[in-house]
């Protein structure tokens, strides 16, 4: 049963979830770790994902030259979406020819 307001993550959002599962990162670290994310779009995507409830953020540096920098982590909702995506991958993404009778 899928909730009415449940929104599936897009491909790029899934790439972000993949990076964030099990660890906290800030945007620049995500850019270095993934080739799929662009500098221009990363914070727009992260903001959208936060609004959807897939991730949450908190301010990492309260003072200093980088005061206000946020660090991101996955929420329970995001982990469930990621888990569902992995199950779907396992169920449907098999090489052509495999399973043919």
């Amino acid at each position: 049963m899928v909730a009415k307001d449940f929104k599936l993550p897009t491909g790029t959002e899934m790439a972000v979830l993949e990076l964030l599962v099990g660890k906290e990162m800030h945007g620049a670290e995500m850019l270095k770790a993934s080739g799929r994310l662009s500098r221009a779009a990363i914070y727009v995507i992260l903001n959208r994902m936060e609004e959807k409830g897939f991730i949450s953020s908190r301010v990492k540096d309260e003072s200093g030259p980088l005061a206000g920098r946020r660090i991101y982590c996955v929420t329970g909702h995001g982990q469930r979406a990621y888990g569902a995506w992995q199950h779907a991958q396992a169920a449907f993404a098999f090489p052509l020819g495999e399973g043919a009778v």
Partner: protein
Amino acid sequence: MITIRKPPGMITHARVTLRVRDKHTGEFIPVKAIDDSDNFDLDVSATEEGKILRRKVFVAFAHEMEPRNKAPLIALPPGNLVLDIAEFLCSQGVYERVFLQAILDIREEYFEALSAHRSRKARWVLIRGYLNLAWTVVLQVGTGLISKIVKAAAGSGG
């Protein structure tokens, strides 16, 4: 002889002269020409008083020195104007989560390049950063408009 440490975050563009105000006459006495290194050794007997405390010298350093070529002594970090505009135009959430983060990334990379004495790379970081930022504005405004249209369509559809 005392050692003065440059205040954190201060960028000196040119050779400057440290001057200390004479307590009695109110005049500024040039003490030492300094470059943009981090620490300076200063002979306190070079001043008329010879009794200047470390704290006073530090304050004098922070406030009273002037560059020889009248270039700004303390440079604002890049992106200040952009942040001011974004803070004025955008909601607090979008400002903090999108534009501030993007500018902080640019600043971090810019200062890394500067501290490695790679000024060309620093300039390139700024150019690339501002181009990316322009594209970020387009994406942010575009996705905001699309989501509003979708919500309005869903609302009118019942």
